[in-house]
């Protein structure tokens, strides 16, 4: 589809002076290796070709060689920032294989940590987005205030980022009353600061100039291209796994789904800041309503034969884990579908000029960042000829052609 688009616009151009501008695999706008080949004409972007398979780590295969307990720590390292979402999703899948429910207190702690991680991920994103539009002051301020939630996470779990709190059958640590008090205080600071950043995003003229009407994704396109998470919600589509398919306690804890109908980058900023505010309220609710009891149940090391699919709303969008057990200590097959992978077609659409909608080179970094990309979890498959020690990647067309042979 992309290639047809290229040819169509090429004929239309008055100047016929194109060149390919590479963004990636190493580029200041990208924090992780991915390659976007932009066809540009002066400052105008005409088309884009994406390649995200630069960081294949073979995690799915590696999962099959480790037992379920060891896998928690491997799963956690699929993505550093959304590690809580990954372990939560994994733990849910394995518990589903066992067919067991975990204690309510564990559920509350899981939800609380999940929401804290969402705050920290969105705050990180807000800082990065500010840096992409050259607003380093906002970047520094947001990251300073992000320390509040980082400290809370460290106090609750023992680690700043890689929390290792979720485990099969519950959580590893309980929350003390003293910790609850500190979390509550931290939430007050965060709420005040987040309201301030919301105000900055909406009222700062230069932020507005750079973010509004940039990276437009129409609701119809968003659904057609399978966008997920805040990217989808900023296009006005009310879609959230926490609402559609409640897990942990999302059917009990009240929260609003934040949507925005501006369909642009500014909408994504506002959706994420508002989501952080929602998370603050959810954490408060959890602190108040947390029941007493165990935080963990013991489950056997080898779950019974079966399959399980578990879905979690990670900070970046819908995260899907699939597990198949053959009754041994190791999973037979494990499959992960990360939200960034789902958003790649959408971001390619946002970055293509069509009709009145013009994309400038200057819009590339912020539009790419607006989906909160995490490319290291996107590479899924590559081929390796062991005898020749050669590694390669096939596109879908090449794969189909190979199958026909």
């Amino acid at each position, binding site marked *: 589809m992309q290639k047809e688009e290229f040819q169509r616009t090429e004929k239309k151009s008055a100047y016929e002076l194109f*060149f*390919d*501008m*590479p963004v990636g695999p190493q*580029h*200041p*706008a990208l924090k992780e290796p991915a390659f976007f080949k932009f066809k*540009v004409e*002066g*400052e105008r972007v005409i088309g884009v070709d994406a390649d995200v398979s630069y960081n294949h780590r073979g995690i799915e295969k590696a999962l099959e060689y480790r037992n379920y307990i060891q896998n928690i720590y491997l799963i956690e390292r699929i993505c550093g920032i959304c590690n809580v979402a990954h372990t939560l999703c994994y733990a849910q899948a394995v518990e589903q294989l066992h067919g067991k429910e975990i204690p309510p207190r564990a559920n509350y702690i899981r939800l609380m940590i999940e929401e804290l991680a969402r705050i920290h991920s969105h705050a990180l994103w807000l800082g990065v987005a*500010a*840096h*992409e*539009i*050259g*607003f*380093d*002051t*906002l970047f*520094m*301020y947001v990251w*300073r205030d992000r320390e509040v939630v980082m400290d809370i996470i460290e106090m609750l779990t023992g680690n700043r980022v890689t929390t290792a709190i979720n485990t099969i059958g519950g959580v590893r640590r309980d929350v003390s009353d003293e910790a609850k008090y500190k979390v509550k205080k931290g939430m007050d600071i965060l709420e005040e600061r987040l309201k301030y950043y919301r105000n900055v995003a909406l009222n*700062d003229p*230069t*932020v507005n*100039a*750079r973010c509004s009407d940039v990276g437009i994704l129409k609701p119809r396109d968003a659904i057609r291209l399978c966008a997920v998470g805040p990217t989808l919600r900023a296009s006005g589509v009310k879609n959230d796994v926490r609402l559609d398919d409640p897990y942990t306690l999302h059917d009990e804890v009240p929260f609003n789904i934040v949507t925005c109908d501006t369909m642009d980058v500014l909408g994504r900023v506002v959706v994420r800041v508002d989501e952080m505010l929602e998370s603050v309220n959810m954490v408060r609710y959890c602190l108040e309503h947390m029941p007493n009891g165990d935080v963990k149940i013991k489950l056997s090391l080898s779950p019974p034969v079966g399959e399980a699919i578990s879905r979690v709303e990670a900070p970046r969008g819908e995260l899907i884990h699939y597990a198949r057990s053959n009754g041994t200590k190791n999973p037979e097959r494990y499959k992960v579908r990360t939200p960034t992978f789902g958003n790649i077609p959408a971001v390619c659409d946002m970055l293509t000029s069509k009709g009145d909608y013009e994309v*400038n*080179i*200057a*819009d*590339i*970094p912020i539009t790419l960042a607006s989906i909160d990309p995490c490319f290291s979890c996107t590479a899924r498959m590559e081929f390796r000829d062991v005898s020749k020690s050669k590694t390669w990647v096939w596109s879908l067309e090449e794969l189909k052609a190979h199958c026909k042979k």
Partner: protein
Amino acid sequence: MEWLLELLQILIFPGIVFAIVLAFVYEWFDRKIYAKLQNRVGPLYTGKSGILQPFADFVKLLAKEDITPGEVDKPLFNALPIVALTLSLMGFLALPITGLRGIISFNGDLIFLIALMTLICIVIIYSGISSSNRFSTVGAERAALQLLGYEIPMMLSAISIGILAGSMWVYDIVNTQVSGIWFLVGPSILGFAIFVLCGQAELERIPFDIPEAETEIVAGWLTEFSGKKLALFRLTKDVELLYLSGLAVALFLGGPSGPVISGLEPILYPIYFLLKTLFVLFLLTTLRALFARLRIDQMVNFSWKYLVPLAILQVLLVRVIV
């Protein structure tokens, strides 16, 4: 002996050595204030409060490998960093620092000073194009567009002061300010604002750092420069920063003049010059911390929608008063 004194003036004080030392100190000041505004500490370890950091960066860059890519226009690519530095230092020599006139001073030198700034920008455009790198080409293209945006309001605001003084000689302009009308509080405050804003664009600093926008086009026109050439370009930027704040002081803030005890002028004038340029630098740094980077079309739009009409208004205002 007079020629020796003049030579010393050009080479040491208030000439080239002074300019370069001051440029490093001002870069440090700029970085430190910028860091403070962002709730950071800024340079800290090299020298007292990191004052030697810009100099250390410069020396480090000089020692780095200097790569000349195969595809570049070699003579141009190698010559441009030196040309740029020479131009900015030449501008500095014309600023009044120790007295009411600079080392180079002649009737009509305001035009020469403004031309120098445009020339530096043209050097930038050439260095982008001579690199034959995609990011550099885009950067050069943006630098050219940006020049279209800021040059005219900047010239108009400078010339309005010339009209007010009735001369295009910086010496005359400074003299008029000393002998009576204190400009800034009067009609030229608008001109000063325009000049500082355009200076920000000339220096390619946020919100006008469009030609070297890091996250967009890597380093823009600077992308292919490394080692000594990059060091020279960085030094050029520092000297240009100093030169621009010096020019703003000379045109709008009364140059190095101030309340003086007779006989102590040669000591007091440089001190006033330093204080006033630091004030302008502080304004420039604050501007840098306040905004996000604009897009090139927004920048040119802003400039022609607001800056050019305001600059014309400033000229009219001055005409009415004179």
